[in-house]
């Protein structure tokens, strides 16, 4: 409503911003709609109907509302896309999304490493190879990376005292050292 009062001027401003990319839009819209439909079909199996409850206190009431909304908006979104037919660039874009799984794997490896060898060592093991993987080869970047890791660990673990438990590796150290490592690194 408020935007419409400024219609033309805002449209002119929007012309300055780059247009929305069309590549991959149809793939995403189809996948999202498929996901919403699967959820819709699972409604009777994933929610329970309570006989004594009224319609608005049924446990499935809000899932029904939300999933129906997902399906309706999803259908309209797909319908209103500038291009629905899959083209080569859509598949190329989808390949890029799949390649994003590499970062998920790096991240999960980091997560699993922390309880084993500790926060500081695992962050170093994660950040430095990741810097290399991203194509940085100059020693300067690795020194900065190591400094960053140290600063992050000190800031979060020592200053903000966030809860990150000690590692299995720390158990191998003498008690004094172990306590220090558990508290600070």
């Amino acid at each position, binding site marked *: 409503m*408020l935007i419409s009062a400024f219609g033309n001027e805002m449209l002119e401003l929007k012309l300055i911003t780059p247009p929305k990319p069309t590549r991959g839009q149809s793939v995403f819209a189809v996948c999202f709609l498929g996901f919403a439909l699967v959820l819709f079909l699972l409604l009777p199996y994933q*929610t329970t109907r309570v006989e004594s409850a009224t319609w*608005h*206190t049924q446990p499935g009431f809000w899932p029904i509302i*939300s999933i129906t909304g997902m399906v309706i908006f999803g259908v309209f979104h797909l319908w209103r896309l500038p291009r629905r037919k899959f083209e080569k660039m859509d598949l190329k874009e989808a390949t890029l999304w799949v390649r994003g799984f590499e970062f998920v794997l790096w991240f999960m490896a980091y*997560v699993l490493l922390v309880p084993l060898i500790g926060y500081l060592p695992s962050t170093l093991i*994660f*950040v430095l190879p990741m810097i290399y993987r991203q194509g940085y080869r100059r020693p300067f970047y690795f020194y900065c990376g190591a400094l960053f890791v140290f600063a992050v660990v000190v800031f979060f673990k020592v200053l903000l005292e966030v809860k990150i438990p000690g590692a299995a590796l720390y158990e191998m150290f003498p008690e004094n050292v172990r306590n220090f490592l558990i508290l600070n690194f």
Partner: protein
Amino acid sequence: MENVLLGLEVLSRWDVAIAILCGSIGGVIIGAIPGVGPAVAIAILLPATFSMEPIVGLTLLLGIYGSSMYGGAIPAILINTPGTPVNALTTYEGYPMTTRGEARRALSLAYAASFFGGIFSVICLILVAPILAKVAPLFGSREIFLAAVLGLVLVVIAHKENMLAAGMLACFGIFLNSVGLEPVKYTSRYTFDQSWLANGIDLIVVVLGLFAISQAYFLMSGDDVKIRVNKVRGNLFQGFKELSRHPVIAGISGVFGVVMGIIPGVGEFTAQFMSYTTAERMSKRPKAFGHGSSEGLIASETANNAVPGAAMIPLLALGIPGEALTAMMLSVFYVHNVIPGPGLFLYQLDFVTALYLALLILNIVVVIFLMFATNFLVQLVRIPNRYLGVCILALGFVGVYSLRNNPSDCAMAAVFGLLGYVLRRLDLPIIPIILGMVLGGIMEVKFRSSMSRVKEPLDFIDRPIASIIFIVLVVILLIHFLRVIKEWKPRKERKWTYRKASGKFGRLMFNRRRHMLDDRGKVLRDLQLMSPARKKED
């Protein structure tokens, strides 16, 4: 006055003072690095603030929120890249000024306008607070439910180009909130018999995934850009003097910022676009807009800095966040069992006043910091994007893992990060998912409690505020649908024209080919063969 003194007493604590200092300076630094932004920083710091007292945690987050736009103006003006998304309009006026050799003028003007916007919103809030204290108790379950629905509708409508996508993603957010054990009957909803889903999907995990981790993936999969920046020399106070020559534009932009900030789901973008277009209309030199106009720069910077303070109003008065950053702040309240809403204004007005005063102080701290640290901040834009992505991913880990030390949270955040990465690549909005989750939870609770007192459907809106919100909701939807229908016809006509043009040529070729191949064509070909010219040749 008494409340102001009580608020100052709260702020005089050393831990609160440090939080303001760290939040404001940290926010400027974060804003000055393109690719980070306040949402990423707040998402990462959010779990760490849970162990702090609410006032300490909130001033830290508020500091980042309120000051990041100051920092965001630096790369927007110097290298034509907005530090935070809301500084996009600043590039239209700031960068042309830099290319004219007026970088110092542009920066000082941006600082002055931002400072004015920030202070203006805080003054408005201090004046509005007593009224809110009187109005807020009139909001019961029905009113809050309707306000949440209004917020959600406005969020969807505000994404004008992506409205349908915003709608489906907002519904997805509501769905995410409903996963887990249902709070009244304790039956499971979409848990797929997995114990780790029984507690539901944590908002912080989703926030960290969608904002921090997805931004890391996005930066790491992109390219680095070589940037050359020059030092800014000279006094940066001149902007205040220049700002004083445009009081009307600054005032109107401040009003737009405050009003748009209060309305849930609208936010900085609409505020600055509206103030920018108004400034253009009012200007004596409208043609200078887009080519380094000082008035345009004032309008955009004032408006976007007036929003954070105003955005706190629906959050504090009704417990309804208007955008993603205040939604994140809401979780700080929940963790400490401080229920934002009407009660906060009635019983903890000193807390609310302390927050407003913190906003006021942080604006002063930021301007002083910027006067001395601009040249240092300029160098931050040199950090390569992919390198920054690695750093954000490492920081994202702390955010997720420190919540419950649970690897399944991290896995979930990584998956949401991938979803956010896809949405970023497609230029689809992320914010509706977060607001859907937060407002979905509020709607579920308030709807249930309000329906227990409703016998007939009309009882739902029989109270004055409920009926006003309902009428506003209906009017907004009506106007929106009318606009959609109005835009539909020319769009359809354009589409038909386009299809007709391209289809016509294809059809012409197809018909010609068919014509030449079918029986009639054969006859024609034969006739052509039997033409007088051919006969002569024969």
